[in-house]
């Protein structure tokens, strides 16, 4: 490994540091970045002074205080800021677990950025959008097969919306049986499920019952049996979860919830370890959703646009949102004639650019390729864990009794923290000095102490994984030898340790330039 270490660890890495000023400091009065079309002379003559057409009092008195910057400087500003941003394409992004960071194929970007998708209005006549309707329909067909479900909607615009769609379908099902929130008002979930499983259920009106794992890393059946009751409307959880653990009792879980009349919803935002290996349907779930911006390769885009298609069994199909994209054997159409539907879950039909990319990705891989995705992701994770656990000082796996992990593992730096005083965030900041992308510790609350959750998806090479393992090892050694240096990191990024206290006092917090200048101008002598 010493050879690999010499090759892989980038001691001389440094992020670009442009010291880029705010856009407001660029340009000069009178500069223009783009010229919009002006009113034709004939129209101006026909309608007269435009200002006189608008009701008095509705004309803006003070022009907005936007920057005045010519085009080259606007472009350079953003390009520089892009160079101070770590995307998958530039960084080793293994540390950003649970997010399924993977390569987003360039051909899919090309195909998703043509006028025939960019410049479609959602209310165009169906005859002029047959191509995109076909793509939405066919992606739904693929997702049905991948999950085992009978029907899918691609409308939810994010993962949280995918879960919310299913929570609303669950409520509609119970209400139709006279089991509204007055009778069935509880949803069971697990602490290692994504926080949105809690949040969207709460917004839908439910109380949450949260199961904690035992020493195996997953909640046991006894806990579930104690939690279910006549008030249980359903169960919403992730499996495998953030620990990469597949609950071996999942079928019994679903049976237990079904026995009290509840429905079972699987959050499969991250399905990377199970594609082509197992399906929500056989495990007993009634509903499922996927994140196309995770498992299905659409880029994360700084946090969206994403897509969270939701699927269900035949029995629940009637509740799916309107419109459904349907096919009558000749043409694709938007089916609004669905009297039991929960209604819409986005303004139109979801984020179709994301849908298109996912369709391209599946059509590039096929059934064998999808299985290879899961196999490689799981092998990559196993390989990484073996290296980390045998070579890195102060690191352990959360729930060490359970080594049957799929796509990711939540590790703990508890021992290193106790021995050096260096916490997981400091380690992350120092890893950033070696060029990693993001780093995911854990969702809140932290159940595994001082957590770190890397996820070596299938698009990382063995070298990428080895590089990451070397970085982790190096930084852990540094924590033992020079803890202050690690705590003071980052040293080689575009920014240093920030004063976060100001951000947490509302009198000091400035979310806009306006607020900043109002609150802090005098003490800084800054001018606007």
């Amino acid at each position, binding site marked *: 490994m010493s050879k690999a270490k010499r090759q892989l660890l980038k001691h001389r890495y440094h992020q670009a540091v442009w010291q880029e000023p705010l*856009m407001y400091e660029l340009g000069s009065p009178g500069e223009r970045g783009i010229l919009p079309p002006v009113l034709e002379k004939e129209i101006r003559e026909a309608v007269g002074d435009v200002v006189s057409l608008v009701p008095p009092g509705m004309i803006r008195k003070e022009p907005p205080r936007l920057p005045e910057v010519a085009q080259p400087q606007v472009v350079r500003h953003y390009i520089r800021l892009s160079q*101070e941003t770590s995307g998958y394409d530039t960084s080793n992004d293994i540390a950003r677990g649970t997010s399924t960071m993977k390569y*987003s194929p360039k*051909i899919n970007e090309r195909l998703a950025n043509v006028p025939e998708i960019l410049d479609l*209005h959602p209310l165009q006549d169906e005859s*002029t959008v047959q191509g995109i309707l076909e793509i939405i329909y066919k992606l739904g067909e693929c997702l049905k097969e991948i999950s085992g479900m009978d029907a899918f909607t691609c409308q939810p615009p994010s993962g949280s*919306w995918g879960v919310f769609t299913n929570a609303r379908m669950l409520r509609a099902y119970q209400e139709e049986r006279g089991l509204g929130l007055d009778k069935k008002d509880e949803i069971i979930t697990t602490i290692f499920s994504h926080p949105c499983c809690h949040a969207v259920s709460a917004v839908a009106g439910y109380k949450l019952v949260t199961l904690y794992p035992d020493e195996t890393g997953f909640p046991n059946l006894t806990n579930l049996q104690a939690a279910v009751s006549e008030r249980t409307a359903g169960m919403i959880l992730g499996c495998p979860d953030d620990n990469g653990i597949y609950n071996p009792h999942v079928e019994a879980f679903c049976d237990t919830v079904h026995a009290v009349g509840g429905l079972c919803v699987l959050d499969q935002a991250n399905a990377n370890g199970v594609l082509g290996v197992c399906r929500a349907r056989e495990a007993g779930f009634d509903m499922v959703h996927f994140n196309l911006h995770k498992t299905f390769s659409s880029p994360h885009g700084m946090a969206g646009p994403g897509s969270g298609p939701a699927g269900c069994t035949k029995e629940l199909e009637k509740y799916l949102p309107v419109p459904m994209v349907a096919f009558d054997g000749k043409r694709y159409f938007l089916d609004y004639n669905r009297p039991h539907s929960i209604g819409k879950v986005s303004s139109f039909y979801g984020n*179709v650019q994301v849908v298109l990319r996912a369709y391209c990705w599946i*059509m590039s891989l096929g059934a064998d*390729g999808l299985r290879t995705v899961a196999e490689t992701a799981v092998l990559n994770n196993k390989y990484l864990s073996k290296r980390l656990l045998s070579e890195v000082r102060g690191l352990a796996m959360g729930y060490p009794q359970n080594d049957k992990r799929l796509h990711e593992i939540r590790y703990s730096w508890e021992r290193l923290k106790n021995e050096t005083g260096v916490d997981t965030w400091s380690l992350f900041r120092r890893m950033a000095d070696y060029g990693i992308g993001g780093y995911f510790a854990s969702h809140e609350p932290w159940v595994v102490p001082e957590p770190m959750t890397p996820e070596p998806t299938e698009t990382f090479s063995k070298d990428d994984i080895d590089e990451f393992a070397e970085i982790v090892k190096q930084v852990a050694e540094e924590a033992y030898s020079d803890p202050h240096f690690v705590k003071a990191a980052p040293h080689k990024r575009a920014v240093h340790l920030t004063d976060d206290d100001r951000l947490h006092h509302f009198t000091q917090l400035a979310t806009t330039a306006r607020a900043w200048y109002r609150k802090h101008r005098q003490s800084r002598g800054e001018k606007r």
Partner: protein
Amino acid sequence: MSEAKKPTVHPYIPNSAPQTSAEMLDFVGAKSVDELFTAIPESLRINGKLDLPPPFASECELKRHVSGLLRKNVSCEEYVSFLGGGVAHHHVPAVCDELISRAEFLTSYLGNVWIDHGRFQVLWEFQSLIGDLLEMDVVGEPTYCGSSAAYSALLLASRVAGRKQALVPRNISRDRLALIKEVCRAQLDITEVAYDQRTGLLDLGDLEAKISDQTAVVYFENPTYLGSIEPRGNEIAKIAHENGALCAVSVNPISLGLLETPRNYGADIVCGEMQPLGIHMQYGGGMGGFLAVPDEERFIAEYPFRLFGRTDTVVEGELGFGVGNYEHTSYVRRDLARDFIGTNASLFAVAVGAYLSLMGPQGMREVGETIVGRTHYAVRQLASIEGIRIPLEATPFMEFVVNFDQTGNSVREINKRLLDRRIFGGKDISNEFPELGQSALYCVTEVTTKENIDSLVDALREIVA
């Protein structure tokens, strides 16, 4: 499901190369990859393989297949569109397209400022630019769309006011109203307020009748969904405030170089859809919402999305950024959350920020004038056609209702015949607003030329003759 899988070496999967996977299996002490899946009960594991269409092994074939599907679409660059109703065909500067396709932005995600100083600055500048456009001090990250910003505004207002009723006018989109009602169902009582069918504007008498000490918020849109400019914002806000309620306004941001910002007629909360500001329609996928509130603790404490803030660093003079309210978001609050956020529409913060920076105050003023001028021209020309009426008297900004009752044709028939002439007619609202008869909502933007409008008028003259 059919026969077992064959080994696949795929270009997106480096370790699918047999030598590498064998080496790695050896390292982890497994004979085959199947051993790694024993955590999944055998009865649940797929025996065989998924029944999916055969893949396109080469990129060339994939491109041919998908391009072939996309060619079945007709874009608004090809036909002339008069469609609005939530999104519309606007000019997207090439700079916006270029910047959001930058891999560094496109392939980044959530995370901390230490790795993504640039992304944090982009998001803070986005908030600042929207803040300046609205003259509002607190703006957060983008949310899903204008309709989601609207329900979030109502939920937030309810928490701030400690009341449960939201008054929402009937002149908003049925789809938006349904979404608001559905999301807010467990928390709010959504009460509809009538609109004046003569103007399309909120019925102030009905507002006075419905408002009470239970009302948390009065919501309205400006311009309205039906296109009218609401000149009585001050009066509506006054009625809300006199009853201890807040006033929330959803605004079309492309109007704000020309039209007054809601804050200056009394709005407490301002939200809207940012698609007009440099985002392609994408068949309705190109949407993002913004939500602005006053700089007061009671609003900030209830703000449901991440608020990026500016701060200092340990290095003198270095710009720093961070998130101010993460603990208030659904990521941390879980079952205590009363709204939720996750992956939203953050990439569009790049496009919108670049758009507002390029346009500047002058560009925003000019685009507003062009839109109003062309819209009024279109209204006049259409009104001159026998049988066609412009039923609402209020001044339009970018959209307006066109009524075809006296032509004897349905909107559906007319739009079909316009389509034959490569024109997308206005949105059919005859089911959405039956009281307005056979009416369509027409939209004219800065990309709609006089020639486009004249060709529509010529076509309609022929069709209704």
